[in-house]
């Protein structure tokens, strides 16, 4: 087991508007080890991006409120340090993030050189102009963009190339942790394969840890060491890749996710969708959030919210696998 780099513990995030309170993240906990890749999977609205933005402290401050929990980077609680310190010493410097849509993540009226330089200026004040210039060329080469294109603007690059530029900016300060939020969703499969292969080799070379947020189980299978499955704002199952993909004890939601995808290898006549929808985050049920849709729901699931427990070999939040439930059922 590698040393823990980032530890998220019981994180709660709410979005408050005049009409309602949306509970986007509800007691989310996970660890990322040094140099490790964690995949966070889940459907739209599961709270994946909100969790990532909370780690970066980039949530919109008018509506979003972190109401509980800790986010520890190397033992230090990021939620307690002042914004200025966060900006200078953590964000971009130790944790960098790449976003889903490379078309909107870049400033259209700045050359890509200036956008990379901006990131370096913020964090490496001691570098002189020549050193900055060579650093820019270095990261561009790293992501496979010819350095002589550095004076071009974002619109002169294709989608895949733009995502490479975004990655170059993220890597410019050699972060310890890279958060990639659906980095290839906007790209075509052949380009996606190029970008994923590149991220993977860079991560290995730089010894960087990564949180990869995606809804594509295929991408997780190819790039991650560990997986956390997120549903209605909480991690409902976490474990090594094999435990989540082929393990015997799995959360019914995880099983459902796998059954819903058409299988490329086998012939399936009908797909098995997960019935129903994710619960309304402004009005969460008392028991298990998956109760309404769960094919294996029991009485206890309606009333008692299951906690993550290790009893099935890896953390699962489901009454099916907790011994206290089993004894209760047998009674």
């Amino acid at each position, binding site marked *: 087991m590698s040393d823990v780099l980032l530890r998220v513990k019981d994180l709660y995030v709410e979005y408050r508007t005049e009409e309602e309170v949306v509970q986007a993240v509800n007691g989310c906990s996970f660890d990322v080890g040094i140099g490790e890749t964690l995949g966070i999977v889940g459907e739209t609205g599961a709270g994946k991006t909100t969790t990532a933005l909370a780690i970066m402290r980039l949530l919109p401050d008018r509506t979003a409120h972190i109401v509980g929990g800790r986010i520890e980077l190397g033992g230090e609680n990021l939620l307690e340090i002042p914004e200025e310190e966060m900006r200078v010493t953590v964000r971009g410097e130790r944790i960098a993030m790449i976003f889903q849509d490379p078309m909107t993540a870049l400033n259209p009226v700045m050359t890509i050189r200036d956008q990379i330089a901006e990131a370096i200026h913020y964090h490496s004040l001691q570098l002189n102009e020549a050193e900055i210039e060579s650093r820019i060329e270095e990261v561009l080469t790293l992501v496979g963009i010819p350095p002589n294109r550095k004076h071009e603007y974002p619109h002169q690059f294709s989608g895949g190339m733009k995502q490479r530029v975004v990655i170059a900016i993220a890597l410019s300060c050699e972060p310890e942790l890279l958060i990639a939020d659906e980095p290839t969703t906007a790209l075509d499969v052949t380009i996606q394969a190029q970008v994923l292969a590149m991220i993977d080799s860079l991560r290995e070379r730089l010894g960087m840890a990564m949180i990869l947020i995606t809804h594509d*189980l295929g991408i997780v299978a190819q790039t991650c060491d560990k997986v956390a499955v997120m549903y209605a704002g909480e991690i409902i199952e976490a474990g090594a890749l094999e435990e989540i993909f082929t393990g015997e004890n799995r959360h019914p939601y995880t099983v459902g996710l796998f059954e819903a995808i*058409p299988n490329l290898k086998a012939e399936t006549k009908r797909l098995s969708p997960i019935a129903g929808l994710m619960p309304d985050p402004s009005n969460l049920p008392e028991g298990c959030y998956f109760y309404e849709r769960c094919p294996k729901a029991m009485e206890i699931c309606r009333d008692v919210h299951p906690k993550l427990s290790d009893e099935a070999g890896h953390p699962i939040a489901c009454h099916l696998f907790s011994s206290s439930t089993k004894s209760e059922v047998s009674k």
Partner: protein
Amino acid sequence: MSRIVDAPNRPLIETKGLKKYFDVGKKKLHAVDDITISIDEGKTLGVVGESGCGKSTLGRTILKLLEPTGGKIFFDGKEITDLKPKEMRNYRRDMQMIFQDPYSSLNPRQTIAGAIGMPLKVHKICTSKADMDRRIKELMDTVGLAQRLVNAYPHELDGGRRQRVGVARALACNPRFIVCDEPVSALDVSIQAQILNLLMDIQEEMGLTYMFVTHDMSVVKHISDEIIVMYMGHCVEKAPYDELFSNPLHPYTQALLSAIPVPDVSMKFRQSKVIRGEVSSPIDPPPGCRFANRCEYVMEECTGQDIPFKELSPNHHVACLYAEKRHNRG
């Protein structure tokens, strides 16, 4: 299930050398270039390719939502290529479309009943208000929408339900042919499975013919009888769905299949074939194979001359000199 239908094969939709060019200044963008397809009644033709390959344009041109630049389109044996918009009206009932984005394809100020009722109104299918209400309810039942939503607005529905409205609207005038343009790409996997099941159920029930446009290889394999692979406006390979996946002949198809991330941990260390480069410009492309600049098997004769689309094994067509050479060698 459509794949087992044994009725005598009769093409409902046919195109011959269909072309659609767009003007870009003085130049021409070849979006759809010389596509010949035929879809038998009750079957599904899958069209795959990456963004910008012309797959959506092909669908729209067949429906004559775009005027073709060249070639011919036949519906049920009758040529419709040169029909005026007014004459097309009679065919519109039979040829419908389901759009990709259920968020932007519905009018936000129109209720569900309004959206589904619109084609009924336009084609004067219902004789009275009561008849119309009955038909709308029937359609909502067919696609699995609860009756209580009849007066709801699109913003009150989630993506899956919105797409069901899109399906109901396409079914309203009992069409025979539907172009499904990426109907599940905007949806989550669990919802995607619901819509795919729905589309396959109604196809079986009503004997519909689909052209299913998508970039998702696992979806296209699941729903299609036959698949064409497009690259920069050209059809590079055409084969029955199982044949295409078990024996892809065109290097682009091979690359496309190998690039899909498979949710299988035993495949983690497989070498996925990463093809270099990106799609070149479709504006006035030179003759020759359009994949040549990215192809690892490229030969001298691949550029400069058009590549014939040949049937190498029964029903399996490919436009590739390398595949042909390898085939002839045995």
